[in-house]
């Protein structure tokens, strides 16, 4: 589920950071409203908790065991907004300190595991346990929420990886990042999640929620946020935002029929056509052969001058700041 560095193009990474920034901002505002003070420890311990449950192996039939992502448990216990922050903290820490997931992919990984899973899980749990559900229905709702959430997140990962060959190919049309088209990446993500990891998540979520309901009752959900329509609308918007940004970043309109087909089926023989399409989109400077050695040399010099100027600016700013 954690996307490592190198699989997503820098543009995709930037888009997901851009999408997550407002989510993080709104989430921290929401959490602050719900709790009287900025309750850092609650978020931090929520994140620490996710960390720890990822290490717990749940026994499943056949003598095997698997571990859950745990996002749904966290969002049911803390509420979806606090859940988003706690899970993003966990994802960030995993990327930086444990090499689980890429540093540049923190935005995308937070989007999948913190945002999608947290909200999809929380709202499907709430929707399925509307009214006054009995214990059995609550457990079923939790299981369904776990299953739905982890599969949606897997779908998101599949899409993110699958569009890479289309939106970020090299000048010659060869994929520079995740190499597989949607037709391969989606099933590759979905099949194991639908058959194996989804049931583990469902089982784990149901078991933990069942235990929480029995032993902790209402006090487990102190930080739980209500479901205001405005926020739900914002959530939907935010989900759509990255797709929209990707669409803007790569002119969909310029893709011919073949390219769209390529996106769906990745007709590999269409490579020559990509080349044509991409030549027009990318600035010329990448094309060494077209410009010759001289142009490259000029570019290197200007890069050196540019970075020198930037470091000088940092130095002067630092001097001023220290006074």
């Amino acid at each position, binding site marked *: 589920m954690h996307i*490592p*560095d*190198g699989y997503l193009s*820098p543009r995709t990474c930037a888009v997901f950071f851009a999408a997550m920034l407002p989510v993080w901002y709104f989430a921290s505002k929401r959490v602050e409203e719900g709790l009287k*003070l*900025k*309750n*850092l*420890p609650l978020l*931090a*311990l929520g*994140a*620490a*908790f996710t*960390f*720890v449950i990822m*290490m*717990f*192996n*749940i*026994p499943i039939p056949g*003598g095997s*065991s698997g571990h859950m992502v745990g996002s749904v*448990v966290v969002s049911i*216990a803390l509420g979806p907004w606090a859940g988003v922050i706690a899970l993003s*903290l*966990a994802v*960030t*820490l995993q*990327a930086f*300190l444990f*090499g689980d997931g*890429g540093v*540049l992919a923190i935005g995308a990984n937070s989007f999948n595991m913190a945002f999608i899973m947290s909200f999809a899980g929380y709202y499907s749990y709430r929707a399925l346990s509307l009214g006054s559900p009995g214990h059995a229905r609550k457990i079923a709702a939790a299981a369904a929420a776990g299953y739905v959430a982890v599969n949606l997140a897997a779908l998101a990962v599949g899409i993110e990886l699958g569009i890479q060959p289309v939106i970020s190919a090299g000048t010659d049309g*060869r*994929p*520079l990042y*995740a*190499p597989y088209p949607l037709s391969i990446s989606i099933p590759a993500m979905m099949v194991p999640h639908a058959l194996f990891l989804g049931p583990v998540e469902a089982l784990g979520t149901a*078991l933990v929620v069942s235990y*929480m309901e029995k*032993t902790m009752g209402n006090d*487990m959900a*102190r930080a739980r946020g209500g479901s205001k329509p405005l926020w739900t609308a914002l959530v939907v918007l935010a989900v759509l935002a990255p797709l929209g940004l990707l669409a803007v970043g790569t002119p969909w309109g310029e893709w011919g029929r073949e390219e769209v087909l390529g996106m769906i089926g990745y007709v*590999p*023989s269409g490579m020559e056509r990509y080349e044509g399409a991409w030549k027009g989109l990318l600035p010329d*400077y*990448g094309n060494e052969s077209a410009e010759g050695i001289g142009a*490259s040399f000029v*570019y*290197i010099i200007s*890069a*050196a001058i*540019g*970075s020198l100027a*930037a*470091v000088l600016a*940092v*130095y002067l700013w*630092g001097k001023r700041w220290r006074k």
Partner: protein
Amino acid sequence: MAEVRLPDWLKESRGEPCLIGKGGSHGFLDKTLANISAFMRETLSSGAAERPGALQGLSPKARIAGFLLLIIACSITGRAFMLIGALVIMAVAMLMSNVSAASLAKRVAPSLFFTSVIAFPVFFDFITPGASVFGVSVSGYSISVTKEGAAIALFLVLRVGVMVALASLLLLTTRQADFFKGLKELKVPHLFVTALYMTFRYVFVLLKTAEDAVLARKSRTIATGRLSEAQRWTASRIALILKKSMSYAEEVNMAMISRGFDGRLRTLKAPGMEGRDYLWLFLTLFFLFLSFGF
């Protein structure tokens, strides 16, 4: 209060020796324990971060910023020679920083292996058509490695390997406290960095609880229990840890308020950067600018 009377059966002892034989496994317990101890081993061994070296001598903020610039550059570039250039920079930095190649390789290996498995089919013509390098043909079915396929797959493996290695080298040469300090100095919001740090810190406390819970069960496991019972046990431990994390959160919050926290964090001013910090930033920035073009 009456004196405790021990029941008679408690006074008997077992005479016969224990028989050695094959027993049931408690796989999920051992796996959980293995996860926990791997985590502890990885985070508590400071290794090269405590040794003197070129990277260790940089200010935390310059070190983190420089590595981020290199990682971004490796993400942007479309050319293998840029990635190999990053590899060379890294090798030099590694040698100047007392980091052993083995410790770096150990961190990079899992990602590299994973990516190699993923990239493997890309070599072949059923994924990437093109000029065949070599191929086999068995009863009408043929399969061959293509030049294009090899280029794509090797490039992906190289890129992932270099990016993971960069992140690992940063980690290996940075003490955890310095890492969080560096993030703060890079103007990442203090509340976020503090929450990040606290997450890291309390993972240890919660893991201790988790470890004790698993060990307590292991010591009492005589026969392999029923599956449903094992699942219920796991759930109850996870819920226990959740409960503990919530009560801890409340207490830690009080401890912060008690010492004057009012929603605003105040920290000491960071020391400024020195010549070598600027040199490092220049080099990494230059590399980033190059990656825009190549």
